[in-house]
């Protein structure tokens, strides 16, 4: 039984269908990449999993139990945590407060102190920036807060939507190292990325999306060696 299992979901924005019959699964301890061009439906799938939008049909199971009918806060409570695209920090709150809000759910709240220790060990910069308003941080630091805030929720699976978006190459490397560390400490990671090279080389498996459909899946290495993918996403 997979940790997260998506079965034949279809999603619509209004009358427009954006996800066609997508199925995928994530096993415990894996890092899974979802890659594809802009508008392929990657973010929509994450939003479906985290309950922000509801699939018209299909089922999503987490830990063996259906979650597709739950509200976002109930899904967070199960341990499925979504770090949204564009960081979406609480800009006028301090870094510390952002992290505290991350531990809002009843499963994480009693362990707030351990959460802080773990996040500070993972991202020491956040300790230094503790009292600063999130809006005043640099892009890389904001992304760290977004990841830290997600970790505060004690995720069993952490879903990251384009964590490298808009960051300098040096920072992108740092973010991917952080993701590796998170996975090494036992959190399953579902990664949506445009940086195909980095994300696939980190991942055990990957899914390629095109126009709302899964067109290819395989191990990270298989996909990286695939000539079509090399041409479409790496330009080689």
């Amino acid at each position, binding site marked *: 039984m997979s940790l997260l299992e998506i079965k034949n979901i279809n999603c619509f924005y209004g009358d427009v269908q954006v996800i066609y019959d997508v199925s995928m699964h994530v096993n415990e301890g894996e890092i899974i990449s979802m890659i594809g061009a802009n508008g392929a439906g990657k973010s929509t799938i994450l939003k479906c999993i985290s309950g922000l939008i509801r699939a018209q049909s299909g089922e999503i199971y987490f830990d063996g139990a259906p979650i597709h009918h739950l509200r976002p806060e109930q899904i967070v409570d199960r341990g499925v945590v979504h770090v949204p695209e564009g960081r979406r920090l609480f*800009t006028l709150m301090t870094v510390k407060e952002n992290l505290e809000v991350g531990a809002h759910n009843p499963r994480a709240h009693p362990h707030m102190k351990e959460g802080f220790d773990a996040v500070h060990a993972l991202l020491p910069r956040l300790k230094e920036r503790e009292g600063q308003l999130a809006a005043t941080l640099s892009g890389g630091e904001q992304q760290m807060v977004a990841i830290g805030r997600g970790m505060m929720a004690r995720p069993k699976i952490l879903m990251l939507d384009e964590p490298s978006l808009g960051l300098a190459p040096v920072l992108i490397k740092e973010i991917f190292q952080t993701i590796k560390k998170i996975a090494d400490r036992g959190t399953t990671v579902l990664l949506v990325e445009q940086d195909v090279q980095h994300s696939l080389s980190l991942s055990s498996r990957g899914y390629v999306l095109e126009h709302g459909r899964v067109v290819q899946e395989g191990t990270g290495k298989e996909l990286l060696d695939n000539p079509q993918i090399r041409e479409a996403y790496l330009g080689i």
Partner: protein
Amino acid sequence: MDTILQGIVNGTLIGSIYGLAALGLTLIFGVIKVINFAHGSCLMVGMYAAYWAVKLLGIHPYLAMVIVVPALFFFGYLMQDIVIKPVLKAQSDVREPTEVIIVTTGVWYILDNVTLMIFGAEYRVIQTSISGKIFELGDLIISKPKFYGFIATIVVSLALVWFLKYTKMGKSIRAASLDREAASLMGINQYRVYNIAFGIGTAIMGVVGCALIPFYYVFPTVGVIFDVKCFIIVVLGGLGSIPGALIGGVIVGLIESMGAQFMTSTWTELIVYVVFLAVLFVKPAGLFGSKLDW
């Protein structure tokens, strides 16, 4: 000189009570991004609740807060939950759902007219033990109920700031006000946060109601007077800003009481609007409105 000083004192005291009334409005707007047109009517409900609590139970108007404030909290909580939430849900992808304004306007008419039907149109005054009581400070005359209203404003504002800054619920309210979708992803039930924020905004009207009845008439459309004042104050101070609401209230109170010494009080209304427009002209976000905020 004495009359000017007296005017400043009177204006600050009554203005602070206006500010407290505006505080509820600014809190609700800041969190839910909804202008509550029924805000004055909520104050009217608070005043009637205070009136009847004092009249029927014979208790001190400030003691009546113990009953009136929780009652108004639940009134606001349920109003948001039953009336506004369905519209908000239907508009969940809009940042500032304007349809809700229409709904709150409907609530305003219904509340005012149901009150008219039940209690009649007469102006009610209640003699309380502090009505008309004063302190004398040298030549200054300070109205006791207004002074206590001023104290209530300070206490409620500090309590609200403390609540928003240091409690778990307060932080959730701030988070949801900044980014409702991200707040959902952090496990915050946004509609519950809205209910509570709306309840607090209305509960503050209970405090204002109790502070007003020792010296103010109660009648079914009393809310309209405060509605207009609150809107001016809140926009003047900056929508969603707590200090903005308080300072805006004091400014309006000062203009009213100082202006009345030099001209007929109808003219003071004009000055309020001129100052209002002048501030918006220079600082469109209001005195304390921030570009980053809300």
